Each structure stands twice: as structure tokens, then as C-alpha cells.
């Protein structure tokens, strides 16, 4: 079995504890809480969504979004990652005439006042030129990065792209809170025992005590779950080491 579901986990727990169906709902409540907690840093349920970019460069976040892994531009079979741009303002800009949201102002690269022979000043400043205005090469100072990017603005439940972003869609890879409907049927089988011990803990009189015996049992199962989920094999390690050695010309 590749994946299991909350329903299977809860019914199995009832069977193991000789409990009737009247305890199903309680098991379901606790197991969904456990799934949420495990999603953050153990199961790391990573969802991907192809999202449309709106008229002012905004992207609405999925309901189960917790944290972003990357915002990418699909390119053939690959995804090109975009960097975060923390300088993007979280404020939306209104059109003073219509009142609707409008795209952010782009950087003033296209403004004539800031150009030199058609090149943005930010570029030409670092060119080395002689007295005749001829380039002498040795170009310094141009950053290698790009100014395109995004910023996650949780209070708006949106991602804001930089001004002038051209693509109509982006692919968002994000950590889910494990509470979307799909997650109920996509639980790693390794996690079943961990969820059982969480239900036991929450049904015990020590439900709020993280140092209780029941809590420690759960934490141990969580530790084992992390170990089991680690997919690094001996072959992988050997391959990483071998790939770190390169043949080169010996002088």
C-alpha cells in the first residue's frame, strides 16, 4: 500500500482498542490534528498548483497553503525558480480614476532621464569608456541576479509578482497544512502508527501534558517516522561522493 487514508487509520485504531463506532468521530478529530502537525515538518506534504497570474500581478494562495517552497515558471519539462523580492510593497495600488487595483509601477529603467545612449544608467555607469566614449571593456558591477520575483503576502492571501511580470501562469510548490480534502486519502503508510499513538495521547488524561508517558510514546513514534521517511540510501551517498570528484588535467 503506497498511501493510506484517515478513515482506514481510525477504523484500525478502533479495532485495536476494541472500541465501537461511537468513538470514530473522536479518533477522526485527533487524527486530523495529528496530520496537520506532522504535515509541517515530518510528512511535509508538498503540493503543487498551477496558478493564474491576475491583472495586477497577483496570485491567490491555495486554501491549505502554509509556506512556499518556490514559485516557478514552467519551461518545457522543467520548472525555473523565481527568487523572492522582499522589497515588493504589500500595499495594492488603486487607480485614482476607476478605483480598481492596477499593476505595480515598474522600476524606472525605461525612463529617458535615466538612460545614456539608450542604455539604463544603472548599466552604463560601470562601463569603462575612453575619452571618445568608446568602451574599453572590463565591465564591472552588474549583478548576476534578476529583478523578477515574488513576495508572499499572507495578510492578503496572495503572492505579488514584480511589476511587468509577463507570464500568465506560475507553478507554486508549497507546504500544505494537510487539511485539504485530498490529504485525507494521501497519508504515508509509515505515519499510521504515529497517528494511533497521538490519538491514544489525546484520549488519555494527560492530553495537554507534553511530558506524559503517552506524549513520549507519540514523540518516539514521530522520531521513527522521520527516520523511515528518510530516503537517503547507501547508493545515493556513494553517488554523491563519486560525483564530487572530477577528472582534470594535471599540470
Amino acid at each position: 500500500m503506497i498511501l493510506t487514508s484517515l478513515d482506514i487509520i481510525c477504523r484500525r485504531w478502533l479495532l485495536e482498542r476494541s472500541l465501537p463506532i461511537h468513538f470514530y468521530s473522536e479518533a477522526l478529530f485527533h487524527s486530523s490534528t495529528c496530520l496537520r502537525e506532522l504535515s509541517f515538518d515530518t510528512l511535509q506534504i508538498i503540493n503543487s498548483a498551477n496558478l493564474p497570474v491576475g491583472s495586477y500581478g497577483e496570485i491567490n494562495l491555495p486554501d491549505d497553503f502554509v509556506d512556499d517552497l518556490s514559485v516557478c515558471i514552467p519551461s518545457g519539462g522543467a520548472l525555473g525558480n523565481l527568487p523572492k523580492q522582499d522589497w515588493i510593497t504589500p500595499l495594492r495600488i488603486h487607480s485614482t480614476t476607476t478605483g480598481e487595483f492596477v499593476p505595480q509601477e515598474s522600476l524606472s529603467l525605461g525612463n529617458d532621464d535615466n538612460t545614456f545612449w539608450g542604455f539604463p544608467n544603472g548599466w552604463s555607469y560601470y562601463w569603462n569608456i575612453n575619452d571618445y566614449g568608446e568602451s574599453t571593456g572590463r565591465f564591472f558591477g552588474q549583478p548576476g541576479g534578476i529583478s523578477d520575483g515574488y513576495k508572499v503576502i499572507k495578510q492578503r492571501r496572495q503572492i505579488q509578482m514584480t511589476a511587468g511580470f509577463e507570464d500568465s501562469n506560475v507553478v507554486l510548490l508549497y507546504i500544505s497544512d494537510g487539511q485539504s480534502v485530498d490529504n485525507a486519502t494521501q497519508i504515508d503508510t509509515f505515519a499510521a502508527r504515529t497517528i494511533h499513538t497521538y490519538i491514544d495521547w489525546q484520549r488519555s488524561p494527560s492530553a495537554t501534558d507534553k511530558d506524559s508517558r503517552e506524549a513520549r510514546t507519540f514523540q518516539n513514534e514521530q522520531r521513527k517516522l522521520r527516520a523511515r521517511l528518510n530516503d537517503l540510501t547507501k547508493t545515493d551517498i556513494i553517488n554523491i561522493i563519486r560525483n564530487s570528484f572530477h577528472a582534470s588535467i594535471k599540470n
Partner: protein
Amino acid sequence: MAVVTIYRLAEQAMSLIEGGDAKAASSVSFGELKIACGQIINSMLKTEYFNINLKMGEMIPNGTVLGLYEGIEVQSSNGVSQATLPIKPIKLPRNIGVWAVYPRYANNSNYEYNKEFIPLQMGQTGLLQSQPLINDLLGQVGYECFGDKLFFTKDIKALFPDIVLAMRLAVMDISQYGDYDTLPVLPEMESEIIKQVVALYSVQPTADKVVDATSAEGKGTPLNQQKQTQ
């Protein structure tokens, strides 16, 4: 050992109460004793669950008599469905008295005896609505029990117009057993049932003064001094 029937229990109790065969004008009737036997059995089943099952940590009320009721109608009301319990079961923790509710979705189909609905505690349906993962109970149908009514989390009547329910209820429903049907009563409970029924009726006043116009000794005697004819 003869099988336990309601008639046999009532007859034994009657013999003890009356000190022999029941009199023609006995103030205790067989029908009454049969009802009393049912009441005592239900009370003992509940006591046994609390004294034995729960003490052992067993939540499943093994040994309890479960009455099976089929063909229970469902009504749509206020956007959800509801049904009425055919009989009020024993009150057990978590409403285990309502042991299971099964659907039969169409007229020509079978009851789904291994797919019971999900019981919820009172008020949990409303709380569940805020939880995106489980507010639909993973696609299952739940119900809350308020008194003798079951309220379902979905309008199953609208989804399946021909739906009827079967219920297993933890109750010894005396009306389900004829005089000579075997009762699902534990053998060790038999003598205790009789004892308790006898104790219940031992304080019953003797048969009241009956005005018997055919009795010679009754004639001319004031009403409140007349004795029953022996």
C-alpha cells in the same frame, strides 16, 4: 434446562407472588408481569454493562440485547434528514444504546449492515463545519441523537428518495417476543429477574374488595367492608 421465555418468567413470578396458582380475581395480571420482566431485564443489562464491561475497560456492550428494527422511514427537514427511534434504548455512555444505524438506499437493494452511519455527540455537527478536512466526515453520513430523534449530517432523503433505515438498539423490547419465543437473556440472570419481579409485587395490596352481586355474604355489607370471594 428449558429455554427462557417471557411466559415462563412471568409464570414463576406469579406463583411466588400469589403463593400458588393465580386467582381469577388476582390484582396482578400476566400481561403486567411480562412488562415488569422486560423492565427488570433492561435495568439488569445496564447494570451489568457498568459493573462488568466498563470495569474491564470494555466499551462494547457484549451480552446486551440488541433489538433490530427495519423499515424506519426518513424525513427531510430543514435541509437535513431525520428519523424517529422506534423505541428508546438503554442510556449508555456515548449513546451506545443506539448501537448502529444502517441504510437501505433503494427498494430493491439490501440493508448495508456493514456500513453503518457515524454517530456524533450532540452539537458536534455544527462544530465540524469549521474543519475543512473532516467537515464532510470523509464522505460518510453522520447523525446526532436528540431524545428520540436522529438528525443526519446530510439530507439523505433528498439524495435517496427511497431510503429506509435499520437500527440496532440496546433494549430488551418485550413487544418483539411472543410468549414462547426464546428470550436472549443470560441464564445467570434468570433467577435474579424473578426475584426482582416478586420483590416489586410483594407489596401489592391484596385483591381489593370486589362487589360481587352473586356472593351471598356480600349482600347488605357496606362497600368498604366487603371481602373478595375466595
